[in-house]
């Protein structure tokens, strides 16, 4: 019983980290209205990071495969969505909310479809031949990342691209002296939906049962008669599509994107999955929220340390827990 309550306390403790982070920031920032704005921004950013990182984490958990080219999906998602939105600028410009929503939906769907297709290509052509060989996996996926970035440069050019947004996502809600950007709420809501969807998929369906079992013990899933490679292709494609969706959302958030986006996000995504612990969706969400909040709080308090702070956070957490906050059960 002691052990049980101990375990519960520890789990609660881990999940309380973002809350503690918020409380410390509240004291340091001083102004409640700024704090609310920053917290909302941090949560929104966390949700977008979650979209980008969840696939990477699951893929590693299931097959011990680390895809260093994962950020290519983020970039592709961002640029494909930006292109679709640019192509449908007349719909966005019209007064009709229906048309503007349709343009947004199409852009996000295009990013997802592209992510699925590129994910299928990556899994079957790039990664399949180097299962079980970490060194070559790192090298090959890195090579694929270089090629992907060059393709983006060749297709979209090196100059920054402005991303159009539907009118109803522009602007901010003002409550008292707190202002909350609508797009951030939208990003948060979408991320929350995807998280809920993933939790249902993992905990309420047979496929999810197989994925959870596979993360723990791949061989035994095979011995029970399931082809784990097929499952893996599916998970890989899902992860790629989510990363592309995350990239598309990020493009709308930044409103100005460059081909360097993939490389920048890759670092943050790595920090997220390392902090959260590889292989678990809850851990990834936790890591993403922590990184999102830290980036925004520190960005406000000492702008120059924004990226370094996440790095320091990661080092600290690794010293405390070498496998991250909440890794998958192995």
């Amino acid at each position: 019983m002691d052990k049980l309550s101990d375990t519960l306390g520890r789990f609660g403790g881990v999940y309380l980290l973002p809350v503690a982070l918020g409380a410390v920031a509240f004291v340091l920032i001083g102004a409640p209205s700024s704090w609310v704005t920053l917290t909302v921004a941090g949560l929104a950013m966390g949700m977008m990071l979650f979209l980008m990182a969840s696939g990477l984490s699951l893929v590693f958990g299931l097959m011990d495969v680390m895809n260093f080219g994962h950020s290519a999906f983020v970039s592709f998602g961002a640029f494909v969505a930006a292109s679709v939105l640019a192509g449908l600028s007349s719909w966005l410009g019209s007064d009709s909310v229906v048309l503007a929503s349709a343009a947004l939906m199409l852009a996000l769907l295009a990013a997802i479809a592209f992510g699925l297709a590129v994910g299928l290509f990556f899994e079957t052509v790039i990664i399949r031949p180097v299962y079980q060989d970490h060194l070559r996996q790192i090298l090959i996926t890195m090579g694929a990342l270089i090629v992907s970035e060059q393709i983006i440069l060749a297709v979209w050019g090196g100059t920054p691209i402005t991303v159009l947004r539907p009118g109803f996502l522009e602007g901010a809600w003002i409550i008292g002296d707190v202002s909350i950007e609508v797009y951030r709420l939208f990003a948060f809501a979408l991320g929350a939906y995807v998280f809920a969807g993933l939790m249902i998929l993992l905990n309420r369906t047979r496929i999810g049962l197989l994925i959870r079992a596979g993360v723990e013990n791949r061989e035994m899933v095979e011995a029970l008669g399931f082809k784990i490679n097929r499952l893996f292709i599916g998970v890989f494609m899902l992860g790629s599509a989510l990363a592309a969706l995350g990239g598309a959302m990020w493009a709308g958030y930044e409103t100005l994107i460059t081909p360097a986006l993939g490389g920048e996000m890759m670092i943050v995504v790595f920090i997220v999955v390392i902090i959260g612990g590889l292989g678990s969706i809850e851990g990834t969400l936790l890591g993403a929220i922590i990184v999102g909040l830290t980036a925004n709080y520190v960005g406000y308090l000492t702008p120059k340390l924004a990226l370094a702070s996440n790095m320091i956070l990661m080092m600290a957490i690794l010293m405390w827990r070498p496998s991250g906050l909440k890794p998958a059960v192995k």
Partner: protein
Amino acid sequence: MKQSFGTIAVKTTMLIIAALLLFAPFLFQDIRALEVAARICIFIVLVASYDLLIGYTGIVSFAHTMFFGFGAYGAAIALKQMGPGWDAVALGALAGVLVSLVVATVIGLISLRVKAIFFAMITLAAASVVLVLASQLSQITGGEDGITYRAPDIFKTATKLMVDDDGKVVRWFGVKLNGKLAGYYFVFASSLALFLVLLRITVSPLGTVLMAIRENEARAEAMGYRVVAYRTFVFCLAAVVASLAGSVYAVWLKYTGPDTALAFHIMIDILLMVVIGGMGTMWGAVVGAVLLVMAQYYLRDLMGAASEALHGIPLLPELLAPDRWLFWLGIIFILLVYFFPKGIVGTLMLRGTRT
């Protein structure tokens, strides 16, 4: 021991490359060629020290440029603050080495315990944080613009190493014996010395232990080797060598900025060189560095011409544009890792032993 054809071919190539680099100022008498030769020297050391990690120990680090940058920025900042002098070079190089040692030890102790993949991710994150810091702390590092400074007097182009009776600089085989020449030989000699040290390490008992760890970590541990300690040590060693190479390069270039010393594309260059040349051979570093640096300088011209020729075809001209040369290198890289994981040198040496 009878030497195979492949080994002889590799050794002959090494001798030719060494000779070409030694006589480079006399053989290729233009400024650009000398730049290329100096860059090759530096990258041979950088890649060879990286090979000690990836090829001999099986550690994948993405922070090698970071250590190179510590050395370069150390020398650059010292030369800028203290003025051109050997004391500044020595102090800067030493500072670079110390910072590299501390950072390498911390990273090594934290993350070499965990999986190889974690280590790769953490080094990548650390390197990018340093890159961002370097561009943000512009009072010290000059930010994106970098630092321009003067090297010790002996390396000034105007310096006359030998003068004739008229007070003019002496020419040997038509080459002026000036500070530029001294600079090149400083780079050449330092690189040679560092490379020989690395070579010596790989044939020492330490090299044998490292390879034992790479082949079978659990077994090496069971034999009583403290794997984490060895790995951390090698990581520090490679970091120190990279840092020294950075200092030498900073003295030669008289300029240090993110693009020459820290940017991620340098890391990609190193990776390409070590894989193209061949991991775990040391000689592979030489071949890889020579081929890739040459390609960087001369392939772009070729691609520019090809891009012009294919004008009008969709996408292909864009992909053949000189700036897109990484696209093709990336594809070559992937194909090499698939089909010739031992690289050029490794494959050559293997080929020879079979016949």
